[in-house]
């Protein structure tokens, strides 16, 4: 049963990532880096927050919490597109863009996850 839930949440996460990617290229120009960066940062923040916030609710079953965290947020964010985006940038000679993309993703993801974990652990819970 929990495999099915994770799969459904994963399908939702991947579709949302795909839809945001399309909207992003339609409304913004490409100099803002790829949508993957923003998706990964938002996903890291949310996963950090849920990781420390969800355990407060013992009546939420592990099936549901794993579906949201591992399934939905895991599929929403992606590492493979990050790797391939950088190959494209590097082969295009845009070394500095690739470098900023890597630093923003790694350091930004770390900071977002840290903020999320701290927020979820706070008294008020947000």
């Amino acid at each position, binding site marked *: 049963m929990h495999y099915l839930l*994770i799969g459904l949440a994963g399908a939702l996460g991947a579709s949302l990532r795909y839809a945001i990617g399309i909207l992003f290229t339609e409304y913004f120009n490409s100099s803002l880096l790829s949508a993957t960066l923003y998706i990964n940062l938002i996903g890291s923040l949310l996963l950090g927050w849920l990781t420390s916030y969800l355990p407060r609710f013992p009546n939420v079953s592990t099936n549901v919490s794993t579906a949201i965290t591992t399934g939905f947020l895991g599929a*929403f*964010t992606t*590492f493979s597109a990050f790797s391939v985006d950088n190959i494209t940038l590097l082969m295009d000679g845009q070394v500095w863009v690739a470098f900023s993309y890597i630093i923003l*993703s790694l350091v930004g993801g770390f900071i977002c996850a840290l903020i999320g974990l701290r927020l979820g652990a706070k008294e008020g819970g947000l």
Partner: protein
Amino acid sequence: MIFVAIGGFFGAISRFAISNWIKQHFRTYFPLATFCINLIGSFLLGICVGLGPISSLQLLAGTGFLGAFTTFSTFSVESVKLYESRGLLAAATYMCLSCVLGILLAFIGWWLMSV
């Protein structure tokens, strides 16, 4: 969209199953499961992109399956946990190794398909 959703369904399940298997068989403080999954996924997406222009198969296998199979959010949260339990050096090693090897493997995958 339906291709991405189907790929995402199986990608998320595969990640969950493989990650549980690795966690059961290799007990280490290093987040080995996500590490391996992200590297394998980067390599395969490199192959996928090297195969040619965007098609329904690429949406299914690339954007859907491999996009959902690999994960950045777990990677970030694990980096923070590693920083809190083992210090900055351990976290930085995990992040740099994932990043450099991921890009390198994606390149090798792409290169294999384009020669």
